[in-house]
């Protein structure tokens, strides 16, 4: 008896320029999150390569991947995934502390939190703030190390429409302000308005441009 091999992604080839705000869209199960995990080095492709800043990330060992994730990538998750044992400020500082560079980190973290509108919440435990506030803190955490790419997996998927709108605007303004590359996986295409690039994943294949109009979207 043989095993059935499922290809979550196949022939997905595209490039993203620095400073671009990119949406990855597609129906449920199309392979969007798998693609994001590959870019985020949380998963390894069985074949093919992922280049970030000219580095072939598929050749990195476990320690190098960790360092790469820390310095070059920022993550924003659907459920914010702040560490509830830490305060908002400590959560934002964490990637910097993991990287081992602490000089001026706290000042930068405070400024970032101020720019996402959380200056009054910095000393609160992460589980004592609202979902929208937590997501804003997660954005600040994703930006603290000034990564090459910020990867956001359904960042508004757990928020009401008003808060979602605020989060989208925040991400877009931060992208513009910091010339920061954002790659966002989302079902909520309409929330994002104009973006620099849209990549549609369909049956594991990547197409540039919004091709979701003739697809059934399952939110």
């Amino acid at each position, binding site marked *: 008896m043989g095993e059935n091999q499922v290809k979550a992604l196949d022939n997905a080839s595209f490039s993203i320029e620095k400073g671009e705000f990119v949406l990855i869209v597609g129906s449920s199960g199309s392979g969007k999150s798998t693609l994001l995990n590959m870019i985020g080095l949380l998963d390894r492709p069985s074949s093919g390569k992922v280049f970030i800043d000219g580095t072939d990330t598929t050749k990195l060992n476990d320690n190098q991947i960790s360092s790469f994730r820390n310095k070059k990538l920022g*993550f924003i998750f659907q459920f914010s995934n702040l560490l509830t044992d*830490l305060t908002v400020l*400590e959560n934002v500082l964490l990637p910097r502390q993991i*990287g081992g560079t602490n000089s001026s980190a706290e000042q930068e973290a405070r400024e970032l939190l101020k720019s996402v509108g959380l200056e009054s919440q910095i000393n609160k435990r992460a589980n004592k703030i609202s979902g929208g506030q937590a997501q804003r803190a997660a954005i600040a955490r994703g930006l603290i190390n000034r990564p090459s790419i910020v990867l956001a997996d359904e960042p508004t998927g757990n928020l009401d429409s008003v808060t979602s709108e605020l989060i989208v605007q925040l991400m877009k303004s931060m992208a513009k302000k910091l010339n920061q590359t954002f790659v966002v996986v989302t079902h909520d295409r309409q929330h994002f308005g104009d973006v620099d690039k849209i990549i549609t994943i369909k049956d594991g294949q990547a197409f540039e441009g919004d091709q979701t109009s003739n697809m059934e979207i399952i939110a």
Partner: protein
Amino acid sequence: MEYRLRLAKRMLFNKKGSLIGAVLAVTIGILVIHVNFVIFQGLFDAIVRDISNYRNGDILVTDEADYIDKSDVALANWFERIPYVQGATPRLSSSAEINMTKNGKLIEETRVPVVGVDPIRDVKASTAHETIAEGTYVINRNSVVLGNNVARDLGGAQVGDSLKMLIVDRYGEDQIRRFTVAGIAKSPGGQGLDYSVVMHIDTLRDMMSRSGESGSFMVKLNDPSKAFEVKEFFLAAFPNDDFIAETIEESAEEQLAGFRSGIAMINLIGYFGMMSSAFAIVTIQMMLVNGKTREIGVMRSIGAKRKDILVIFIFQGMIIGAIGAGVGTAAGLGYTIYAKETKMSFMDSIPLEVNYDWEKIIQTALMSFSLAIIASLYPSYRATKLLPVEAMRTV
């Protein structure tokens, strides 16, 4: 503060149930060892103390020829000019048959141990006189002190009663004398002269026809740690005599050997108890790791290396070990202080001789701290094996 230590601390302190459970496991492990030590080592030391105080002193001098014929005054004076010596006294032992009429009824006891003492010197070298529950210690040649058990066997002999004693002398002749009971001796735990009759050594010498001889010489030191030194000095001073000098450890070895191995076994059981607390820590930390799967995944995704995750959970082991060792040592010391201050004894038996063995206290604390860290290694290793993408899926 180092972020890994802060995270370890926060994760642990926010799971108070797990923290208390793990700390209790370490605490109980340490407490078991302290309690074992206080009771069993305390009992051992109490037996040594009583043998030393009542019978053997810190150094016991005997003669290969059974009896010491050197003048007891000369020997006592020789010892007492050594600054470490508190007192030295001769002792002579025999056994007797005792007849006593109590309430018109003749009571006879045979083979009762008799100890002859020098009442003046004995109070300096022995605490036997402190066990007198009624009356006085041996005051003259015609009085005896009855051990509590002997008095009971004689139908409740009391101070002032008269009794007749028969001792067979060195030539096989019966020597019979009448004595007045001067006192009744009763020691805590019955380790003193409770089963003996105490009389003046010169009277016993007369009855045994062993004028000027002693059975042994009991030497009490004000610094027992100098026993070996004093013993060697004594043997060197009398090279032409056939003296045997033994420290308390040597003279009581026969009585203590079995007890010593018993203590070793009890200690072993204590250490097994400590091992089982290490298993409790492994279980609790595995639960902590399982409960923090998402956090581990998040940390890995934002750049934490396996080593960082390992360090966080080892820090947790260190925190558990440090608090557990602190609380356990404090509890153990509390129990030790209580036992010492109350002169703890069980069922009116021998009062424990409780000492603070700081080396053992520190060794126990360090061992439990180390065990807590060792116990945290496996859960920590398991935590590092979580793949970030898998860990994130558990959300």
